[in-house]
């Protein structure tokens, strides 16, 4: 166990030290993107690992990003207030949709379809309110001159790298906290058999709502950070069904049941997109998603535990050498 902690500490130290040694802006940009999306994927896996497969996370992310940007652009509210407001809005949305689902035992297919519709609707609302949000053309938060802490706008990549790293670590800590809490046992019981869990004294609705709320708040934060970093959002990049599916895809490829699985998923998906972009240029439009789609299907059929999950499994179940 100490070996494991040491490995974690060493990895983290390496990540902190990295920008001090290597300052290539393009590489840092890719790393920041990987960290922000890893955080988003981790927040999806917080509920996804308990069989609560939501395709509504694109919606939560869109709410987080757009509420923050709209408050800044139209009311001049600093993102330091805007981000919590955006997270709260996503949380309320999550509760409004999730409460009837959980209260009335809407699970499995039904739950997926309801959340799927949710992300579709958020996309429609953003597009419909084009007078404020800019519709499908996207939205750019008003620029400040130079870096400003109050506006959460920084010109240099290194600051963003540390912000993204911090948030990513917090995401992993939340994952671990849930992994070690009573909620995990409750949620695992619920995902096996809701009635049996209820009979054993688990408050099914409350437990599920708690996990959903945490997951939605985290996703909204990821959306707001993405917006602040990229300084440009469109409905299609932060909300909608394709973003939701992208989260599912990355988590499943990386590994749903291990803490670093979503991160591995983010590394693989973003590297894949970048390699295709560099290799094929503008001809590659659409190709990355084509590859994602094929990989998603292949993974679900042949490797449902994901890359990291399967590797760890094999490592753990390595048969011990027979003692002679």
């Amino acid at each position, binding site marked *: 166990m100490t070996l494991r902690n040491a490995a974690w500490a060493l990895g983290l130290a390496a990540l902190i030290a990295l920008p001090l040694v290597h300052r290539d802006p393009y590489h840092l940009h890719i790393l920041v993107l990987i960290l922000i999306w890893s955080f988003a994927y981790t927040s999806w896996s917080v509920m996804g690992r308990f069989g609560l497969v939501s395709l509504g996370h694109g919606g939560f992310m869109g709410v987080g990003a757009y509420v923050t940007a709209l408050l800044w652009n139209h009311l001049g509210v600093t993102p330091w207030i805007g981000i919590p407001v955006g997270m709260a809005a996503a949380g309320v949305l999550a509760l409004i949709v999730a409460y009837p689902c959980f209260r009335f035992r809407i699970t499995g297919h039904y739950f997926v379809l309801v959340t799927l519709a949710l992300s579709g609707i958020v996309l429609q*609302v953003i597009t419909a309110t084009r007078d404020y949000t800019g519709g499908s053309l996207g939205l750019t938060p008003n620029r400040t001159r130079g870096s400003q802490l109050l506006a959460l706008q920084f010109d240099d990549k290194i600051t963003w790298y540390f912000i993204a790293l911090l948030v990513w670590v917090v995401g992993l800590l939340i994952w671990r906290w849930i992994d070690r809490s009573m909620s995990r046992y409750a949620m695992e019981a619920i995902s096996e058999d809701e009635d049996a869990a209820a009979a054993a004294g688990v408050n099914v609705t409350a437990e599920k709502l708690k996990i959903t709320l945490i997951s939605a708040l985290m996703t909204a934060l990821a959306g707001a950070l993405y917006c602040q970093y990229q300084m440009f959002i469109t409905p299609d990049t932060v909300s909608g069904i*394709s973003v939701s599916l992208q989260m599912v895809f990355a988590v499943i490829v990386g590994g749903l049941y291990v803490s670093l699985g979503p991160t591995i998923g983010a590394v693989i998906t973003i590297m894949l997109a970048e390699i295709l972009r560099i290799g094929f240029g503008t001809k590659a439009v659409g190709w990355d998603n084509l590859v994602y789609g094929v990989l998603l299907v292949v993974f679900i059929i042949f490797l449902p535990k994901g890359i990291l999950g399967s590797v760890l499994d094999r490592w753990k179940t390595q048969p011990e050498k027979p003692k002679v």
Partner: protein
Amino acid sequence: MQGFLDIFDIYLLEAVVNGILLGGVLALLALGLNLIFGVIDVTWICYAELVMIGMYGMYYLVQVFHFPYWAAAPLTIMLVAALGAALHYIVIAPLLTAPPINQLLATGGVLFILQSFATVAFGIDFRNLGIRLPVLAFGEMHFSYARLLSFGAALVGMIAVYLFMKRTFTGTAIRAVAQDRQIMALMGVDTKRIYLITSAIGGGLAGLASCLLVLQYDVHPFVGLSFGPITFLICVLGGLGNFFGGFIAAFVFAEIISLGGLFSDLEWGYVLAFAFFIVMMFIRPAGLFARRS
């Protein structure tokens, strides 16, 4: 004031009728999805994307290869039916014993594949058939001929499926499998074959819908996203696998969209429909016509 009310009523009536016409095509989509869910217990997340591929099929057959519309339509229906069967054979069949969520997510992967395939192969331009059907003036109300045709064809399609299910041996077998998957295999029904046929029928219904939708809407790789979510809402509201519930729910939603669009933008019609859906979940969580257990 009186004059204003008269005009308002006519618009209202027009919106109501247009809602019914829209409901026909939505009901057709819901029927296909429900059929597949009812028989195979799988939800095709990519259903609307099959329709998109069908719309491209129509576009190429009519605009590029200069087929007449009536000849292109059956070809497209067959194409999408084959696509549905292939989807089942390649993706769903290996996952039949996997958790349902995995099957559903695999079709989500197919959604990605179809969308990006269309982007790569056809580009992101909006395309249409270039067929302009006349507008039917009925008193002071105007209805597009395309919508009337779609409504009629959708009804014919649904009746054909109904007759197939009720009158033929294969249809009876499909209904039996929907009732009990395990037992029918013991009774000597080849469930694999039934699944394949059902998938082809589901695909065929998507193909028919694409022939009808292409008359009214431009086709682009992401067109599926504009009616996919609403189809899922309809199926859940009607009760997944419940044909009759899906049929009624389609018209309810179409009216909400049409009337909502009358007072504001079309997008708000969709938002209104979703709000209605959430409220209905509180009242009838297992679908409109679920029996209370």
